[in-house]
Every structure is written in structure tokens, then in C-alpha cells.
């Protein structure tokens, strides 16, 4: 009898615990959906007045006269992210290859904590560093190269600061990607008379390609949403930038700079919510595209 009761409580406990876990899972699955719906509802009042295309493809942002064109912010975001990825991508790829294929194991053991520290530095510190180092660098060194006199607060500065910030994330994944490639693949390729460089170029990079894509797309998503450090160096001027040396005004900076202010202006908060929604949708789209690419690539290896 006692034994039966014991048995029953055991089953009951097991059920309780597994329902907890299900609850936690459902919660984390629903989170992005709730977030998206919330943002959409908040921006609904703006969407009743204007069509979404009008907002997305207009370059006139004049909240006081009721114009909410978001194109300058979207373009700025794309510029900054692209530059960040252009700078961080090659750096990460080459370092990951060096660390996993050429360097002594001790170097990798030292690098791991260094990367973790880099990843853990608060973004405002990167922002301050950007203001103190990168902005003057852009103004005094890069500007004169192109015969331009600029303040340095520019898309380029934002991109460089962002690149430094996403390097640890991309690098971490790339190191794992290259480490999981079996060593035998290197051995057999060497046995065919290949040099180390040929192994890297013809075999390892190919084998790692889906992983490289996913590492870069994670970096891309992070870069796209990064706010503080970018808004400190990017200039925050509302116009459609046509070059990297011009200032820009990315979406996250727009939201962070203006939310909570001027909310008496009609539709203003709704417009900012829509900006947040657009940001979310773009990041999700990045993710979907990269998943699809990875899937395609994995089939062909």
C-alpha cells in the first residue's frame, strides 16, 4: 500500500515537472510573437492614416507636419550593418582559420577568455571608445584621403565600432565551426599532395561554408539592432546617406533618441513603434534567408 502511494507520487511529480518545462518552452516560443503583435497593435493608428509603403519608401521625416517617411533610417541601418560585416567578416574568418589550423593550442586557450571578455564589454564603452578614437580617426585620416573635410561622426565610424562589437560573436561561432571539421579531412587532403593553404582554401572553407553563413548572419542580426554605441558615433542626421563618410541615422538610434520625448506630437509614438516593428521584421527576414541558405548549402556538401 505504502509502496503504491510512493509510486503514484513519483508519477505525479514527474508530470508536474514536465508541465513546468512545457510551460517554459511555450513561453519562450510565444515571446517573439507577443512582441511582434504588441508592436503592430501600437503602430496600428499610424497605419490607418498612411499606407505602409508610403511610410517605408518616403524619405520625408517631419513628425510635426505629420510626415513619417522611414527610408533614411532603413537605408542608414543597412549601410552601417553592411560596413560592419565587411570589416568584421574577413577579420573573423582569417583569425578563426589561423587559430584552429595554424596556431599552437595554447593560443586558442588564451583567445577563448579574451573573446568572452570582448563579448561582455557593455556597448556604451564601445561607444565612448568610438567617440574618442574612431571618430577622430575618420575625420583626420580617412577624410583627407578622399579630400573631404568631415566631422568624423559618420556611417563609417558607426560601421567600424559595430564591427569591433560583433567580432567576438562571429569569431566564437567560427572557431567552433572549424574545430568540428574532422582532422582526417585535412589529413586526406594533405595526402593528395595539397599544401596547408590548399587544404584551407579548397576543403575547409567549403566544408565550413554553411557554418560561416550562419555565423555571419548572427553577426548581422546583432549589428542591425545595436543601438547605443552606434548612435554615439553615427551623427544622427535625417537624410538618405549616399556614402560611408556621411552621417546617418539608423533605426535603433531613432527609437532610442526619441521615445519618451515629444509624445504630444500626434502619431509620433505610433511611428516609433512602427520603426521598432520594421526593425524586428527585417531581423527576422535576415534569419529566414540565412536559414534557407544554410539548408541549401548543406544539401550540396
Amino acid at each position, binding site marked *: 500500500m505504502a509502496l503504491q502511494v510512493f509510486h503514484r507520487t513519483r508519477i505525479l511529480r514527474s508530470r508536474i515537472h514536465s508541465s513546468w518545462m512545457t510551460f517554459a518552452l511555450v513561453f519562450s516560443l510565444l515571446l517573439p510573437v507577443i512582441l511582434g503583435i504588441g508592436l503592430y497593435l501600437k503602430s496600428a493608428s499610424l497605419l490607418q492614416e498612411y499606407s505602409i509603403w508610403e511610410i517605408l519608401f518616403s524619405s520625408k521625416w517631419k513628425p510635426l507636419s505629420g510626415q513619417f517617411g522611414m527610408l533614411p533610417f532603413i537605408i542608414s541601418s543597412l549601410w552601417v550593418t553592411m560596413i560592419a560585416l565587411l570589416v568584421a567578416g574577413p577579420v573573423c574568418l582569417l583569425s578563426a582559420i589561423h587559430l584552429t589550423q595554424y596556431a*599552437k*593550442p595554447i593560443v586558442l586557450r588564451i583567445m577563448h577568455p579574451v573573446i568572452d571578455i570582448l563579448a561582455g564589454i557593455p556597448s556604451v564603452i564601445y561607444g565612448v571608445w568610438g567617440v574618442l578614437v574612431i571618430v577622430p580617426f575618420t575625420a583626420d585620416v580617412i577624410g583627407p584621403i578622399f579630400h573631404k573635410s568631415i566631422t568624423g561622426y559618420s556611417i563609417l565610424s558607426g560601421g567600424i565600432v559595430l564591427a569591433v562589437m560583433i567580432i567576438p560573436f562571429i569569431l566564437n561561432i567560427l572557431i567552433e565551426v572549424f574545430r568540428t571539421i*574532422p*582532422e*582526417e*579531412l*585535412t*589529413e*586526406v*587532403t*594533405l*595526402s*593528395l*599532395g*595539397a*599544401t596547408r593553404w*590548399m587544404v584551407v582554401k*579548397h*576543403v575547409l572553407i*567549403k*566544408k565550413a*561554408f554553411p557554418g560561416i553563413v550562419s555565423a555571419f548572419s548572427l553577426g548581422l542580426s546583432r549589428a542591425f539592432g545595436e543601438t547605443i554605441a552606434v548612435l554615439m558615433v553615427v551623427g544622427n542626421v535625417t537624410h538618405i546617406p549616399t556614402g560611408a563618410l556621411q552621417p546617418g541615422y539608423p533605426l535603433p538610434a531613432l527609437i532610442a533618441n526619441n521615445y519618451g520625448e515629444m509624445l504630444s506630437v500626434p502619431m509620433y509614438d505610433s511611428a516609433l513603434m512602427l520603426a521598432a516593428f520594421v526593425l524586428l521584421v527585417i531581423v527576422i527576414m535576415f534569419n529566414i534567408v540565412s536559414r534557407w541558405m544554410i539548408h541549401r548549402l548543406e*544539401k*550540396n*556538401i
Partner: protein
Amino acid sequence: MSEHVKISVEDLNLYIGKQHILKDINTRIPENQITVILGPSGCGKTTLLKSMNRLTDLYSNVKVDGKILIDNEDILHTDTDITTIRKRMGLLSQRPYPLPMNIFNNVAYGLRISGRKNKAVLRKRVQHYLELVNLWEEVKDRLHDPASSLSIGQQQRLCLARGLSVDPDIILADEPTSALDPISSEVIERKFVDLKSQYTVVVVTHSLQQAKRIADYAIFMYLGEIIEQGPAADFFSNPTEELTRSYIKGLFN
């Protein structure tokens, strides 16, 4: 038997860090025969095999003393470029590791990097080597599919074709059938027997049965040392060492 020595290992000692992995290895591997290296796991047989084409260079903290002579050239102390030495040996590993390319390019890769780029020549050579490993009929209509779409047994044959494509004179195989089903294993084994007239084959294996089936010369290793070696017939019927005898009887693995 005509005994021309292809690979001669003299007083080879190999350390990884402070671990003494190979201890005073001396052996002479005969040309155009199948030499089987037997022994329990961790006895150093794979390391010995890999030191023969200096893949041990990849290990960190490795220290090697002694000589490995291939056709009387000491490959451990030589001015010859290591890639040239490696090209003389085809490597077949425990599991098939096809290159991340299509079937055709897996075989053509070795040819391309050694400078043969003429398309017609490549096609002919690729077909030749795929036929040599009995794979051509199975893959001739899907040469541009990724190599990973083949079955494991087919992949291992593809890897053998790839190894042969650079025209080596030695085949080094590291437990080449341990991941394969019995039928694919048999195909590989038979291939080795066919190939030995043109190649010197060195096979590391766990499987005693396999060793008995294919070996012309057998080496038994235990804890980094060669315990016993000799022509297969004597080795299996009349081992002199106690350890060898109990291993052959299957008393330990």
C-alpha cells in the same frame, strides 16, 4: 619471396609531450605485398602509419627520433618537399572523408593540384580510377552529385579511387573497413589484394580475421612496441611470443 624493402623504419621513437607513443620501432615493409599492423587500441599502430607520410607533423608537441626510409630516402630528414613525399602515398582513413565536392571532383582534385588540368585527360583518368575500385558503373550518371550523397561503402571506394588518382606507390589504410558493412568491407579487401601487384599496401586493422585473410606480412604492436613481426603464414600459425599467441587466440583485444 622476392624481398625488396619498400619502407624501412629504423629506431623510431615518437613522443607527444611527455608521452612515449612509439618505442624503438624497427621494421621493414616489403614491396608489392600487404603488410598488416595489428594490435589493441591505443598501441600506436595508427601513429606508426601516420608517421610514414609525416601526418604526425600536424600534432602539436610531437618529437620524432630515428629514421623512416622510403626507397632508401629518409623522409624524416630530407630536403624533399613534404607534399611530394605525401603524394607517393594514398591514404585511406577509418571512415570515408569525401572532400566537400561532387563525385567527379573528389577524384579529379588530386590530379588538378598536381597540374593536370586538361579536361579530356581528367575525364579519362577519373573514369579509370573509378573503374579500378568498381564504382564507375554505380556513379557514372551522377558524377556531379555531392560525394556525401553516396552510401558509406561507396564513399570509401571513392576515397580509395581518390587516393590512387595521384599515382602513389604506397597505400596506407587505417582500419579502412571498420565503419563498413561486411559486403563493402569485402570489396575493399579484395581491392587491396588486386592492387598489391602494383602497390605496397600497409593496413592497420583491429580485425584478426581480416588480417588473416589479406596479410602477407604481419606486425603485432602492444603499448607502443613491436612485439612480433614476420611473414603472415609463420606469424599466424606459429607465433613465438606469448603475447602474440594470446592476442591471436582472441584472449584480449
